């Protein structure tokens, strides 16, 4: 985390270092809420997934969801973090219409997970460690809709009470790029662990970004917090704007005020948040409805033993055992779905060939169609089937690419397409010889040139014969036979 020269901001009076910390709210993957049996699915009709506990009706008591606790422990272990055997739920008190109890159940002094770390990779190949300060469990609030009526706010409590993990980083990042890499990496780890679906568009992951500036190496400056950013791009946008705003403010003789801000995503600027944040005084105290949360060693040990292979370990294995380049391995492990897809295809096949196909034709088609791996019309088994036909010589490389495009359009198996369209590679030398004889007969001038010493023209003949065979001739065989005919004797 040393100040890398390129990360400094140039001000009128010299250089400034940006200091960034992230608080990420990740929705726990669970069927029901943290303290009630209401459904957590996204997109249900308003107030259809609300228990009377979530609506804070008098006399309702919270009962903790076992799986939500396990998910927090699993995440903590995945982040290499300390698991606290005893943690305590507190009430965070504030008034807002989408918080029916007037308080949020959260963890303040004694969170379930303590310090851990995340390794990030940057574009120039540097890696860096970002410290995790803590992870705690808390309830989400409901949703306020301000644009449905001229003078009323509509409230939907479906989200109220859904379990969130708040993951707080240390102020270890020094540029928007580092913050973006951290958020992407954290998201990948959560998705590998299966503790959060990582769907930022649906709000399953949101980030609050703390930004301050200082002279390189000096004491920390005053920070601002830009809230509720639901994409990597918005996080980067907020940091760029906020860092520049603070530098200009200080250099103009002003002072940064500690405050909460919002990003105007249309204009790419941040502005101070009003009303809600006035008088931050949450008066935390232990929730008398909930006993301390005590974790059993057996449960922690079981979860530890069940942890899946995480991206860093997977990447190292791809390099060491499959012989992939570090870059290719990094691309393949970045998303869990891609890694799963790759591994399914690569099982029993040559890993480098598979990696080239996945990252080349497969990614290319997905990008052109705007699809994710999960939505791919070609399954891993189908791509494997195509590669088998290529491997056993049934089709040529060129035909394979053509077949893959058809597979992507129709979702059919490679073999079906190859058989229907008669694309089987011709390895019968008499058939190929007939084609060669025709091409030679049509181009006496070039034949003469070759015999006069221009050996390189053989390549041109290979191309002509391949064309005449509609790409189906076995190119090695064509090459061999042509050389025999044109260069021999």
């Amino acid at each position, binding site marked *: 985390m040393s100040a890398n020269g390129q990360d400094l901001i140039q001000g009128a009076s010299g250089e400034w270092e940006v200091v960034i910390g992230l608080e990420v709210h990740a929705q726990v993957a669970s069927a029901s809420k943290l303290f009630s049996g209401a459904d957590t699915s996204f997109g249900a009709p308003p107030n259809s997934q609300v228990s009377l506990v979530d609506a804070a009706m008098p006399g309702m008591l919270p009962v903790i969801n*076992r799986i939500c606790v396990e998910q927090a422990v699993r995440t903590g272990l995945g982040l290499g973090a300390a698991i606290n055997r005893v943690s305590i739920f507190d009430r965070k008190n504030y008034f807002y219409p989408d918080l029916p109890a007037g308080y949020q159940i959260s963890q303040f002094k004694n969170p379930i997970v303590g310090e851990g770390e995340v390794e990030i990779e940057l574009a120039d190949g540097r890696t860096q460690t970002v410290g995790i300060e803590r992870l705690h469990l808390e309830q989400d609030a409901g949703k306020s809709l*301000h644009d449905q009526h001229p003078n009323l706010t509509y409230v939907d409590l479906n989200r109220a009470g859904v379990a969130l993990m708040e993951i707080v980083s240390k102020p270890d990042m020094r540029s928007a790029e580092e913050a973006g890499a951290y958020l992407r990496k954290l998201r990948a780890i959560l998705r590998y662990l299966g503790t959060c679906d990582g769907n930022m568009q649906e709000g399953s992951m949101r980030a609050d970004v703390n930004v301050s500036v200082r002279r390189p190496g000096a004491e920390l400056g005053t920070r601002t917090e830009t809230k509720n950013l639901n994409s990597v791009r918005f996080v980067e946008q907020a940091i760029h704007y906020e860092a520049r705003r603070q530098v200009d403010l200080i250099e103009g003789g002003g002072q940064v005020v500690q405050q909460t801000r919002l990003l105007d995503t249309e204009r790419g600027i941040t502005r101070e948040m009003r009303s809600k944040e006035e008088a931050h005084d949450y008066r935390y105290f232990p929730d008398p409805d909930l006993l301390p949360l*005590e974790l059993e060693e057996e449960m922690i040990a079981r979860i530890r033993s069940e942890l899946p292979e995480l991206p860093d370990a997977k990447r190292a294995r791809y390099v060491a055992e499959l012989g992939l380049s570090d870059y290719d391995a990094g691309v393949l492990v970045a998303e869990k779905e891609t890694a799963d897809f790759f591994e399914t295809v690569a099982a029993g096949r040559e890993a480098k060939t598979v990696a080239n196909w996945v990252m080349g034709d497969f990614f290319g088609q997905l990008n052109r169609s705007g699809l994710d791996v999960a939505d791919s019309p070609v399954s891993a088994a189908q791509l494997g089937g195509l590669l088998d036909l290529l491997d056993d010589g049934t089709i040529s490389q060129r035909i394979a690419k053509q077949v893959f495009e058809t597979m992507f359009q129709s979702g059919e198996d490679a073999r079906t397409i190859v058989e229907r369209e008669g694309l089987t590679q011709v390895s019968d030398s008499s058939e190929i010889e007939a084609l060669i004889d025709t091409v030679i007969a049509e181009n006496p001038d070039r034949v003469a040139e070759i015999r006069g010493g221009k050996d390189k023209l053989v390549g041109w003949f290979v191309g002509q014969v391949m064309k005449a065979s509609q790409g189906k001739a076995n190119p090695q065989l064509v090459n061999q036979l042509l050389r025999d005919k044109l260069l021999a004797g």
Partner: protein
Amino acid sequence: MSVDKATVRRIAHLARIGVEEEELEGLSGELSSILNWIEQLHEVDTENVPPLASVNHATLLPREDVVNDGGDPDAVLANAPERHDDFFAVPKVVE
């Protein structure tokens, strides 16, 4: 420990309780004497005693992760001050 009028005004606002100006003096006296009474606890030596989060020595019992509640917007909205479709409708809080 004494609670002055400004503090009473502030905590009343945080708790969204309406307190008239002339009530502040009396409340400040009452709250101060309550706090002073509780402060007697400081006389007990708590060196090496861990903070207590609960007087109940049971452990927190979890529930299984099953959906067995919700699905009844009418019950949830029954006491709503105003209801539009299946939403609570409240005075506008603009950000």
